Protein backbone atom coordinates (compact mmCIF):
# COMPACT_ATOMS: atom_id res chain seq x y z
CA UNK A 1 0.00 0.00 0.00
CA UNK A 2 1.44 3.40 -1.03
CA UNK A 3 1.05 4.88 2.45
CA UNK A 4 2.43 8.34 3.04
CA UNK A 5 4.35 7.15 6.08
CA UNK A 6 6.16 4.39 4.21
CA UNK A 7 7.38 6.87 1.63
CA UNK A 8 8.62 9.39 4.18
CA UNK A 9 10.09 6.87 6.65
CA UNK A 10 13.81 6.84 7.35
CA UNK A 11 15.41 3.43 6.70
CA UNK A 12 16.62 2.81 10.27
CA UNK A 13 13.42 3.73 12.08
CA UNK A 14 10.85 1.12 13.08
CA UNK A 15 7.39 1.21 11.50
CA UNK A 16 4.64 -0.14 13.71
CA UNK A 17 0.86 -0.45 13.34
CA UNK A 18 -1.34 0.57 16.23
CA UNK A 19 -4.01 -1.05 14.19
CA UNK A 20 -7.76 -1.23 14.10
CA UNK A 21 -8.06 -4.24 16.34
CA UNK A 22 -6.32 -2.72 19.37
CA UNK A 23 -7.86 -2.39 22.87
CA UNK A 24 -7.05 1.32 23.14
CA UNK A 25 -8.09 2.14 19.56
CA UNK A 26 -11.78 1.35 20.26
CA UNK A 27 -11.55 -1.24 17.52
CA UNK A 28 -11.89 1.01 14.48
CA UNK A 29 -8.91 3.37 14.31
CA UNK A 30 -5.45 2.76 12.95
CA UNK A 31 -2.28 4.73 13.70
CA UNK A 32 0.88 3.93 11.74
CA UNK A 33 3.88 5.07 13.75
CA UNK A 34 7.47 5.64 12.70
CA UNK A 35 9.49 5.06 15.87
CA UNK A 36 13.06 5.81 16.90
CA UNK A 37 13.10 3.59 19.98
CA UNK A 38 10.21 4.98 22.02
CA UNK A 39 10.08 8.40 20.36
CA UNK A 40 7.48 8.93 17.62
CA UNK A 41 9.08 10.54 14.59
CA UNK A 42 6.06 10.49 12.33
CA UNK A 43 2.48 9.24 12.59
CA UNK A 44 -0.32 8.66 10.12
CA UNK A 45 -3.88 7.84 11.08
CA UNK A 46 -6.35 5.87 9.01
CA UNK A 47 -10.08 5.93 9.68
CA UNK A 48 -13.11 4.53 7.88
CA UNK A 49 -13.07 1.08 9.43
CA UNK A 50 -16.59 1.64 10.73
CA UNK A 51 -17.96 3.50 7.70
CA UNK A 52 -21.46 2.00 7.46
CA UNK A 53 -22.92 4.22 4.74
CA UNK A 54 -25.19 6.19 7.10
CA UNK A 55 -25.71 9.15 4.76
CA UNK A 56 -26.40 6.97 1.73
CA UNK A 57 -28.83 4.83 3.72
CA UNK A 58 -30.69 7.93 4.93
CA UNK A 59 -31.24 9.04 1.35
CA UNK A 60 -33.26 5.86 0.81
CA UNK A 61 -35.33 5.92 4.01
CA UNK A 62 -38.29 8.11 4.91
CA UNK A 63 -37.87 10.86 7.52
CA UNK A 64 -39.72 8.79 10.11
CA UNK A 65 -37.91 5.51 9.44
CA UNK A 66 -34.36 6.80 9.65
CA UNK A 67 -34.65 7.77 13.31
CA UNK A 68 -33.10 4.46 14.56
CA UNK A 69 -30.04 5.18 12.40
CA UNK A 70 -29.41 8.35 14.37
CA UNK A 71 -29.12 6.28 17.60
CA UNK A 72 -26.14 4.41 16.19
CA UNK A 73 -24.09 7.52 15.38
CA UNK A 74 -22.66 8.51 18.75
CA UNK A 75 -23.78 5.28 20.39
CA UNK A 76 -22.53 6.35 23.80
CA UNK A 77 -25.06 9.19 24.05
CA UNK A 78 -27.70 8.10 21.51
CA UNK A 79 -30.51 10.36 22.68
CA UNK A 80 -28.54 13.51 21.88
CA UNK A 81 -28.30 12.47 18.22
CA UNK A 82 -32.04 11.75 18.25
CA UNK A 83 -32.58 15.22 19.67
CA UNK A 84 -30.35 16.81 17.01
CA UNK A 85 -32.20 15.11 14.18
CA UNK A 86 -35.65 15.70 15.65
CA UNK A 87 -35.02 19.39 16.29
CA UNK A 88 -33.58 19.91 12.81
CA UNK A 89 -36.79 18.49 11.37
CA UNK A 90 -38.90 20.58 13.73
CA UNK A 91 -37.01 23.70 12.64
CA UNK A 92 -37.71 22.80 9.03
CA UNK A 93 -41.38 21.90 9.59
CA UNK A 94 -42.00 24.76 12.02
CA UNK A 95 -43.49 22.43 14.61
CA UNK A 96 -43.95 23.46 18.27
CA UNK A 97 -43.18 20.78 20.89
CA UNK A 98 -45.30 20.64 24.09
CA UNK A 99 -43.68 21.85 27.31
CA UNK A 100 -43.63 18.50 29.06
CA UNK A 101 -41.98 16.80 26.09
CA UNK A 102 -39.23 19.45 26.16
CA UNK A 103 -38.58 18.80 29.84
CA UNK A 104 -38.40 15.03 29.28
CA UNK A 105 -36.02 15.66 26.40
CA UNK A 106 -33.65 17.71 28.57
CA UNK A 107 -33.76 15.03 31.28
CA UNK A 108 -32.99 12.23 28.82
CA UNK A 109 -30.22 14.15 27.04
CA UNK A 110 -28.45 15.02 30.27
CA UNK A 111 -28.61 11.37 31.35
CA UNK A 112 -27.06 10.42 28.01
CA UNK A 113 -24.40 13.10 28.33
CA UNK A 114 -23.33 11.75 31.72
CA UNK A 115 -23.19 8.17 30.40
CA UNK A 116 -21.08 9.47 27.47
CA UNK A 117 -18.55 11.16 29.76
CA UNK A 118 -18.58 8.15 32.12
CA UNK A 119 -17.76 5.72 29.29
CA UNK A 120 -15.07 8.00 27.84
CA UNK A 121 -13.28 8.54 31.15
CA UNK A 122 -13.70 4.87 32.12
CA UNK A 123 -11.99 3.77 28.90
CA UNK A 124 -9.27 6.43 29.23
CA UNK A 125 -8.56 5.49 32.86
CA UNK A 126 -8.51 1.75 32.08
CA UNK A 127 -6.09 2.28 29.22
CA UNK A 128 -3.81 4.15 31.63
CA UNK A 129 -3.99 1.30 34.10
CA UNK A 130 -6.75 2.42 36.49
CA UNK A 131 -9.03 -0.60 36.08
CA UNK A 132 -10.96 0.15 39.29
CA UNK A 133 -12.16 3.46 37.87
CA UNK A 134 -13.47 1.54 34.86
CA UNK A 135 -15.50 -0.82 37.08
CA UNK A 136 -16.83 2.02 39.26
CA UNK A 137 -17.95 4.07 36.28
CA UNK A 138 -19.58 1.11 34.57
CA UNK A 139 -21.53 0.50 37.76
CA UNK A 140 -22.69 4.12 37.81
CA UNK A 141 -23.65 3.92 34.15
CA UNK A 142 -25.88 0.91 34.92
CA UNK A 143 -28.00 3.09 37.21
CA UNK A 144 -28.34 5.77 34.54
CA UNK A 145 -29.27 3.18 31.97
CA UNK A 146 -31.91 1.79 34.33
CA UNK A 147 -33.77 5.11 34.18
CA UNK A 148 -33.44 5.23 30.39
CA UNK A 149 -34.53 1.62 30.01
CA UNK A 150 -37.64 1.90 32.17
CA UNK A 151 -38.74 4.99 30.23
CA UNK A 152 -37.83 4.08 26.69
CA UNK A 153 -37.72 0.30 26.77
CA UNK A 154 -34.14 -0.05 25.56
CA UNK A 155 -30.89 0.63 27.38
CA UNK A 156 -28.98 2.30 24.62
CA UNK A 157 -30.51 2.44 21.16
CA UNK A 158 -33.74 4.04 22.24
CA UNK A 159 -35.13 6.11 19.26
CA UNK A 160 -37.18 7.69 22.02
CA UNK A 161 -37.03 11.35 20.99
CA UNK A 162 -39.34 11.59 17.98
CA UNK A 163 -39.99 14.44 15.55
CA UNK A 164 -42.50 16.55 17.45
CA UNK A 165 -42.02 15.18 20.94
CA UNK A 166 -41.16 11.96 22.71
CA UNK A 167 -42.50 8.48 22.24
CA UNK A 168 -43.97 7.82 25.67
CA UNK A 169 -44.46 9.53 29.01
CA UNK A 170 -42.32 8.87 32.08
CA UNK A 171 -43.32 5.80 34.11
CA UNK A 172 -44.70 5.97 37.64
CA UNK A 173 -41.62 5.37 39.76
CA UNK A 174 -39.28 7.57 37.69
CA UNK A 175 -38.54 10.15 40.39
CA UNK A 176 -36.87 7.86 42.89
CA UNK A 177 -34.95 5.89 40.26
CA UNK A 178 -33.58 9.23 38.98
CA UNK A 179 -32.74 10.11 42.57
CA UNK A 180 -30.84 6.84 43.13
CA UNK A 181 -29.05 7.27 39.78
CA UNK A 182 -27.97 10.81 40.70
CA UNK A 183 -26.68 9.94 44.16
CA UNK A 184 -24.94 6.77 42.86
CA UNK A 185 -23.21 8.81 40.17
CA UNK A 186 -22.22 11.46 42.71
CA UNK A 187 -20.70 8.77 44.93
CA UNK A 188 -18.73 7.34 42.02
CA UNK A 189 -17.57 10.80 40.94
CA UNK A 190 -16.33 11.47 44.46
CA UNK A 191 -14.41 8.18 44.43
CA UNK A 192 -12.87 8.88 41.03
CA UNK A 193 -11.88 12.40 42.07
CA UNK A 194 -10.08 10.82 45.00
CA UNK A 195 -8.52 8.10 42.86
CA UNK A 196 -7.27 10.08 39.89
CA UNK A 197 -7.10 13.81 40.58
CA UNK A 198 -3.81 13.84 42.49
CA UNK A 199 -2.59 10.40 41.43
CA UNK A 200 1.07 10.91 40.43
CA UNK A 201 0.97 8.19 37.79
CA UNK A 202 -2.15 9.64 36.17
CA UNK A 203 -0.73 13.16 36.43
CA UNK A 204 2.56 12.18 34.81
CA UNK A 205 0.72 10.41 32.02
CA UNK A 206 -1.71 13.26 31.29
CA UNK A 207 -0.48 16.62 32.58
CA UNK A 208 1.18 18.48 29.72
CA UNK A 209 0.67 15.58 27.31
CA UNK A 210 -1.21 16.14 24.07
CA UNK A 211 -1.57 19.86 24.69
CA UNK A 212 -3.06 21.99 21.93
CA UNK A 213 -3.03 25.77 21.61
CA UNK A 214 -6.25 27.75 21.25
CA UNK A 215 -5.55 28.82 17.66
CA UNK A 216 -4.88 25.21 16.63
CA UNK A 217 -7.99 24.02 18.43
CA UNK A 218 -10.10 26.55 16.54
CA UNK A 219 -8.28 25.90 13.29
CA UNK A 220 -9.05 22.19 13.65
CA UNK A 221 -12.70 23.02 14.29
CA UNK A 222 -12.73 21.59 17.79
CA UNK A 223 -15.93 21.92 19.77
CA UNK A 224 -17.25 20.51 23.02
CA UNK A 225 -15.25 19.48 26.12
CA UNK A 226 -12.02 19.29 24.11
CA UNK A 227 -12.31 22.92 22.99
CA UNK A 228 -13.38 24.07 26.44
CA UNK A 229 -10.31 22.38 27.89
CA UNK A 230 -8.22 25.00 26.08
CA UNK A 231 -10.17 27.73 27.82
CA UNK A 232 -12.45 28.88 24.96
CA UNK A 233 -16.06 29.18 26.12
CA UNK A 234 -18.24 27.70 23.38
CA UNK A 235 -21.19 25.52 24.32
CA UNK A 236 -24.15 25.26 21.96
CA UNK A 237 -26.51 25.15 24.98
CA UNK A 238 -25.33 28.65 25.92
CA UNK A 239 -24.43 30.06 22.47
CA UNK A 240 -27.70 29.06 20.75
CA UNK A 241 -30.04 28.00 23.60
CA UNK A 242 -32.60 25.36 22.64
CA UNK A 243 -35.21 23.42 24.67
CA UNK A 244 -35.18 24.81 28.25
CA UNK A 245 -31.46 25.45 28.60
CA UNK A 246 -31.95 29.20 28.80
CA UNK A 247 -34.27 28.74 31.82
CA UNK A 248 -32.03 26.32 33.71
CA UNK A 249 -28.90 27.60 35.41
CA UNK A 250 -25.71 25.65 34.91
CA UNK A 251 -22.19 26.89 34.25
CA UNK A 252 -19.59 25.73 31.75
CA UNK A 253 -16.30 24.39 33.20
CA UNK A 254 -13.18 25.55 31.37
CA UNK A 255 -9.64 24.17 31.37
CA UNK A 256 -6.54 26.27 30.77
CA UNK A 257 -3.73 24.30 29.04
CA UNK A 258 -5.78 22.12 26.69
CA UNK A 259 -3.88 18.95 27.60
CA UNK A 260 -5.19 15.51 28.53
CA UNK A 261 -5.58 16.36 32.18
CA UNK A 262 -7.75 19.38 31.35
CA UNK A 263 -9.92 17.30 29.05
CA UNK A 264 -10.38 14.82 31.88
CA UNK A 265 -11.05 17.65 34.35
CA UNK A 266 -13.59 19.42 32.10
CA UNK A 267 -15.51 16.20 31.57
CA UNK A 268 -15.61 15.45 35.30
CA UNK A 269 -16.89 18.95 36.12
CA UNK A 270 -19.35 18.81 33.27
CA UNK A 271 -20.87 15.69 34.78
CA UNK A 272 -21.50 17.65 37.98
CA UNK A 273 -23.30 20.30 35.95
CA UNK A 274 -25.39 17.69 34.17
CA UNK A 275 -26.39 16.20 37.54
CA UNK A 276 -27.47 19.68 38.66
CA UNK A 277 -29.45 20.06 35.44
CA UNK A 278 -31.18 16.72 35.98
CA UNK A 279 -32.23 17.72 39.48
CA UNK A 280 -33.59 21.08 38.29
CA UNK A 281 -35.55 19.49 35.43
CA UNK A 282 -36.84 16.68 37.66
CA UNK A 283 -38.19 19.36 39.99
CA UNK A 284 -39.78 21.18 37.04
CA UNK A 285 -41.62 18.18 35.56
CA UNK A 286 -45.16 18.02 37.09
CA UNK A 287 -46.65 14.66 37.95
CA UNK A 288 -48.53 13.48 34.85
CA UNK A 289 -52.26 12.80 34.99
CA UNK A 290 -52.07 9.05 35.23
CA UNK A 291 -54.75 7.28 33.24
CA UNK A 292 -55.79 5.62 36.50
CA UNK A 293 -57.38 2.23 36.83
CA UNK A 294 -60.67 2.47 34.91
CA UNK A 295 -63.36 0.12 36.18
CA UNK A 296 -63.69 -1.77 32.95
CA UNK A 297 -61.10 -2.22 30.21
CA UNK A 298 -61.86 -3.97 26.95
CA UNK A 299 -59.55 -5.65 24.46
CA UNK A 300 -58.74 -3.76 21.22
CA UNK A 301 -60.51 -6.41 19.08
CA UNK A 302 -63.62 -6.03 21.22
CA UNK A 303 -63.39 -2.23 20.92
CA UNK A 304 -63.20 -2.44 17.15
CA UNK A 305 -66.23 -4.70 17.02
CA UNK A 306 -68.21 -2.32 19.21
CA UNK A 307 -66.83 0.64 17.35
CA UNK A 308 -68.73 -0.32 14.19
CA UNK A 309 -72.01 0.82 15.71
CA UNK A 310 -71.10 3.59 18.06
CA UNK A 311 -67.95 4.93 19.60
CA UNK A 312 -67.24 2.67 22.62
CA UNK A 313 -67.07 4.51 25.94
CA UNK A 314 -64.94 2.04 27.87
CA UNK A 315 -61.18 2.35 27.94
CA UNK A 316 -59.11 0.08 25.71
CA UNK A 317 -56.44 -2.08 27.30
CA UNK A 318 -53.36 -1.32 25.23
CA UNK A 319 -50.45 -3.67 24.80
CA UNK A 320 -47.68 -3.10 27.39
CA UNK A 321 -45.21 -1.60 24.94
CA UNK A 322 -47.63 1.24 24.25
CA UNK A 323 -47.64 2.11 27.95
CA UNK A 324 -47.08 5.83 28.46
CA UNK A 325 -48.60 6.91 25.16
CA UNK A 326 -52.23 6.51 26.13
CA UNK A 327 -54.68 9.03 24.75
CA UNK A 328 -55.08 11.00 27.97
CA UNK A 329 -51.33 11.65 28.23
CA UNK A 330 -50.81 12.01 24.51
CA UNK A 331 -51.11 15.76 23.85
CA UNK A 332 -48.54 16.47 26.55
CA UNK A 333 -45.79 14.38 24.99
CA UNK A 334 -46.34 14.71 21.24
CA UNK A 335 -47.27 17.77 19.26
CA UNK A 336 -50.63 17.97 17.53
CA UNK A 337 -49.39 20.02 14.54
CA UNK A 338 -50.47 18.46 11.29
CA UNK A 339 -47.46 17.15 9.40
CA UNK A 340 -46.00 15.05 12.21
CA UNK A 341 -49.09 14.02 14.16
CA UNK A 342 -49.60 10.26 14.54
CA UNK A 343 -53.03 9.66 16.12
CA UNK A 344 -53.07 7.74 19.45
CA UNK A 345 -53.82 4.04 19.20
CA UNK A 346 -57.26 4.42 20.78
CA UNK A 347 -58.36 6.64 17.89
CA UNK A 348 -56.74 4.39 15.32
CA UNK A 349 -58.73 1.41 16.64
CA UNK A 350 -62.09 3.05 16.91
CA UNK A 351 -62.53 6.15 14.77
CA UNK A 352 -62.41 6.43 10.97
CA UNK A 353 -60.36 9.65 10.92
CA UNK A 354 -57.78 8.13 13.27
CA UNK A 355 -57.42 5.07 11.09
CA UNK A 356 -57.06 7.04 7.87
CA UNK A 357 -54.58 9.58 9.24
CA UNK A 358 -52.56 6.80 10.83
CA UNK A 359 -52.49 4.83 7.58
CA UNK A 360 -51.77 7.95 5.56
CA UNK A 361 -48.84 8.84 7.83
CA UNK A 362 -47.04 5.59 7.28
CA UNK A 363 -47.94 5.10 3.62
CA UNK A 364 -45.15 5.36 1.10
CA UNK A 365 -44.90 8.82 -0.45
CA UNK A 366 -47.01 10.53 2.25
CA UNK A 367 -45.79 10.72 5.86
CA UNK A 368 -43.64 13.72 6.82
CA UNK A 369 -42.95 15.85 3.74
CA UNK A 370 -41.08 19.02 4.66
CA UNK A 371 -40.99 21.94 2.19
CA UNK A 372 -38.14 22.19 -0.34
CA UNK A 373 -34.90 23.74 0.94
CA UNK A 374 -32.02 22.98 3.28
CA UNK A 375 -31.56 23.52 6.98
CA UNK A 376 -28.72 23.20 9.49
CA UNK A 377 -29.28 22.82 13.22
CA UNK A 378 -26.91 21.63 15.92
CA UNK A 379 -27.10 20.56 19.54
CA UNK A 380 -24.39 20.11 22.17
CA UNK A 381 -23.40 16.46 22.09
CA UNK A 382 -21.02 14.49 24.30
CA UNK A 383 -18.06 15.35 22.08
CA UNK A 384 -19.12 18.73 20.78
CA UNK A 385 -21.47 20.29 18.28
CA UNK A 386 -23.59 17.57 16.64
CA UNK A 387 -25.07 19.27 13.58
CA UNK A 388 -27.53 17.93 11.01
CA UNK A 389 -27.63 19.44 7.53
CA UNK A 390 -30.71 18.21 5.67
CA UNK A 391 -31.58 19.07 2.06
CA UNK A 392 -35.19 18.21 1.29
CA UNK A 393 -36.80 18.14 -2.15
CA UNK A 394 -40.42 17.95 -0.94
CA UNK A 395 -40.70 14.16 -1.09
CA UNK A 396 -40.86 12.02 2.06
CA UNK A 397 -37.19 11.02 1.77
CA UNK A 398 -34.32 13.41 2.52
CA UNK A 399 -32.46 14.34 -0.66
CA UNK A 400 -29.23 14.69 1.32
CA UNK A 401 -28.55 14.28 5.05
CA UNK A 402 -25.14 15.21 6.39
CA UNK A 403 -23.98 14.89 9.99
CA UNK A 404 -21.43 17.31 11.39
CA UNK A 405 -19.52 14.77 13.52
CA UNK A 406 -17.62 16.53 16.32
CA UNK A 407 -15.05 13.80 16.83
CA UNK A 408 -14.12 13.84 13.11
CA UNK A 409 -12.58 17.28 13.69
CA UNK A 410 -11.09 16.41 17.09
CA UNK A 411 -9.38 13.25 15.84
CA UNK A 412 -7.95 15.01 12.76
CA UNK A 413 -5.59 16.83 15.15
CA UNK A 414 -4.20 13.60 16.65
CA UNK A 415 -1.25 13.34 14.25
CA UNK A 416 0.00 16.76 15.27
CA UNK A 417 -0.51 16.10 18.99
CA UNK A 418 1.55 12.90 19.16
CA UNK A 419 4.39 13.77 16.76
CA UNK A 420 7.66 13.95 18.72
CA UNK A 421 6.21 12.48 21.88
CA UNK A 422 6.77 9.04 23.38
CA UNK A 423 4.88 5.97 22.29
CA UNK A 424 3.07 5.68 25.61
CA UNK A 425 1.59 9.20 25.23
CA UNK A 426 -0.58 8.08 22.30
CA UNK A 427 -2.91 6.15 24.60
CA UNK A 428 -4.01 8.93 27.01
CA UNK A 429 -4.18 11.49 24.18
CA UNK A 430 -6.39 9.27 22.08
CA UNK A 431 -8.42 8.21 25.10
CA UNK A 432 -9.21 11.76 26.16
CA UNK A 433 -10.45 12.63 22.66
CA UNK A 434 -13.28 10.10 23.02
CA UNK A 435 -13.28 8.90 19.42
CA UNK A 436 -16.61 7.16 18.67
CA UNK A 437 -16.42 5.04 15.50
CA UNK A 438 -20.07 5.39 14.55
CA UNK A 439 -19.88 9.17 14.57
CA UNK A 440 -16.37 9.45 13.09
CA UNK A 441 -16.88 7.28 10.01
CA UNK A 442 -20.69 7.64 9.80
Amino acid sequence: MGLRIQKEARPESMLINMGPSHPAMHGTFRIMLELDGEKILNAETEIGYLHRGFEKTCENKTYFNLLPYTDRLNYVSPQINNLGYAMTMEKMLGVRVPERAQMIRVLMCELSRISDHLTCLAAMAMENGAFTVFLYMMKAREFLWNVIEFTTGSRMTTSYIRIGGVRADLYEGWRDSVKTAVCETRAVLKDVHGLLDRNPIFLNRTRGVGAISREDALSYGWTGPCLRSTGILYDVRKAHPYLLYDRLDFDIPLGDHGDNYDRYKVRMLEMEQSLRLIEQVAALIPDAALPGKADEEIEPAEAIRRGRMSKPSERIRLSPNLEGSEKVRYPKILTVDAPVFVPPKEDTYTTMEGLISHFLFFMDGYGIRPPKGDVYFSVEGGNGEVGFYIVSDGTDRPYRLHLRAPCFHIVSALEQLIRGRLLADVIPTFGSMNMIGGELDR
Partner: protein
Amino acid sequence: MMELALSFLVFGVLSAVMILINFILGPRKPNPAREKPFECGSPPLQSGIGPVNIPFFLVALLFLLLDVEIAFFYPLALAFRDRGLAGLTALGGFVLVLGLGIIYAWKKGIFRWS
Protein backbone atom coordinates in the same frame (compact mmCIF):
# COMPACT_ATOMS: atom_id res chain seq x y z
CA MET B 1 16.99 -38.36 52.42
CA MET B 2 14.07 -40.48 51.38
CA GLU B 3 11.43 -37.75 51.51
CA LEU B 4 13.73 -35.34 49.68
CA ALA B 5 13.93 -37.74 46.73
CA LEU B 6 10.19 -38.42 47.03
CA SER B 7 9.31 -34.69 46.93
CA PHE B 8 11.62 -34.11 43.97
CA LEU B 9 9.97 -37.05 42.20
CA VAL B 10 6.39 -35.93 42.85
CA PHE B 11 6.91 -32.27 42.05
CA GLY B 12 9.09 -33.10 39.08
CA VAL B 13 6.43 -35.33 37.52
CA LEU B 14 3.71 -32.82 38.32
CA SER B 15 5.52 -29.90 36.69
CA ALA B 16 6.53 -32.06 33.70
CA VAL B 17 2.90 -33.02 33.18
CA MET B 18 1.73 -29.43 33.43
CA ILE B 19 4.36 -28.25 30.96
CA LEU B 20 3.99 -31.06 28.46
CA ILE B 21 0.21 -31.38 28.55
CA ASN B 22 -0.12 -28.61 26.02
CA PHE B 23 2.32 -30.34 23.76
CA ILE B 24 0.48 -33.66 24.12
CA LEU B 25 -3.11 -32.55 23.92
CA GLY B 26 -2.98 -29.45 21.77
CA PRO B 27 -4.38 -30.01 18.26
CA ARG B 28 -1.98 -29.12 15.44
CA LYS B 29 -3.41 -27.26 12.44
CA PRO B 30 -0.54 -25.54 10.58
CA ASN B 31 -1.71 -22.16 9.23
CA PRO B 32 0.52 -19.86 7.13
CA ALA B 33 -1.05 -16.71 8.62
CA ARG B 34 0.14 -17.77 12.05
CA GLU B 35 3.79 -17.30 11.06
CA LYS B 36 3.26 -13.59 10.28
CA PRO B 37 3.64 -11.17 13.22
CA PHE B 38 0.43 -9.98 14.90
CA GLU B 39 0.13 -6.26 13.96
CA CYS B 40 -3.39 -5.58 15.28
CA GLY B 41 -4.82 -7.26 12.23
CA SER B 42 -3.34 -4.91 9.64
CA PRO B 43 -0.59 -5.93 7.18
CA PRO B 44 2.89 -5.31 8.63
CA LEU B 45 4.51 -2.10 7.36
CA GLN B 46 8.08 -3.43 7.15
CA SER B 47 9.33 -7.01 6.96
CA GLY B 48 11.58 -8.06 9.83
CA ILE B 49 12.59 -5.96 12.84
CA GLY B 50 15.29 -3.34 12.35
CA PRO B 51 18.17 -2.66 14.78
CA VAL B 52 16.90 -2.13 18.35
CA ASN B 53 17.99 1.06 20.18
CA ILE B 54 20.67 1.03 22.87
CA PRO B 55 18.55 2.16 25.85
CA PHE B 56 16.48 -1.01 25.47
CA PHE B 57 19.61 -3.13 26.08
CA LEU B 58 20.58 -1.09 29.16
CA VAL B 59 17.17 -1.51 30.73
CA ALA B 60 17.18 -5.22 29.90
CA LEU B 61 20.59 -5.74 31.51
CA LEU B 62 19.58 -3.84 34.62
CA PHE B 63 16.43 -5.90 34.91
CA LEU B 64 18.38 -9.13 34.54
CA LEU B 65 20.78 -8.01 37.28
CA LEU B 66 18.03 -7.23 39.77
CA ASP B 67 16.03 -10.32 38.91
CA VAL B 68 18.98 -12.51 39.82
CA GLU B 69 19.41 -10.49 42.99
CA ILE B 70 15.85 -11.28 44.01
CA ALA B 71 16.46 -14.93 43.22
CA PHE B 72 19.30 -14.87 45.82
CA PHE B 73 17.00 -13.42 48.48
CA TYR B 74 14.94 -16.60 48.61
CA PRO B 75 17.52 -19.13 49.98
CA LEU B 76 18.85 -16.42 52.33
CA ALA B 77 15.36 -15.86 53.74
CA LEU B 78 15.01 -19.60 54.36
CA ALA B 79 18.29 -19.90 56.18
CA PHE B 80 17.88 -16.58 58.00
CA ARG B 81 16.79 -17.86 61.42
CA ASP B 82 19.94 -19.66 62.35
CA ARG B 83 22.34 -17.23 60.61
CA GLY B 84 21.38 -14.31 62.88
CA LEU B 85 23.37 -11.09 62.62
CA ALA B 86 25.98 -12.49 60.21
CA GLY B 87 23.24 -13.36 57.72
CA LEU B 88 21.85 -9.85 58.01
CA THR B 89 25.19 -8.18 57.30
CA ALA B 90 25.80 -10.49 54.31
CA LEU B 91 22.38 -9.60 52.90
CA GLY B 92 22.91 -5.90 53.69
CA GLY B 93 26.24 -5.81 51.84
CA PHE B 94 24.78 -7.63 48.89
CA VAL B 95 21.79 -5.27 48.64
CA LEU B 96 23.94 -2.19 49.25
CA VAL B 97 26.25 -2.92 46.32
CA LEU B 98 23.40 -3.51 43.93
CA GLY B 99 21.49 -0.51 45.32
CA LEU B 100 24.45 1.71 44.48
CA GLY B 101 24.38 0.27 40.99
CA ILE B 102 20.77 1.25 40.55
CA ILE B 103 21.22 4.78 41.91
CA TYR B 104 24.21 5.29 39.58
CA ALA B 105 22.16 4.10 36.59
CA TRP B 106 19.25 6.32 37.63
CA LYS B 107 21.41 9.42 37.88
CA LYS B 108 23.07 8.63 34.54
CA GLY B 109 19.54 8.79 33.21
CA ILE B 110 19.15 5.55 31.34
CA PHE B 111 15.46 5.63 32.28
CA ARG B 112 14.97 9.15 30.93
CA TRP B 113 14.31 8.66 27.23
CA SER B 114 16.06 11.59 25.55
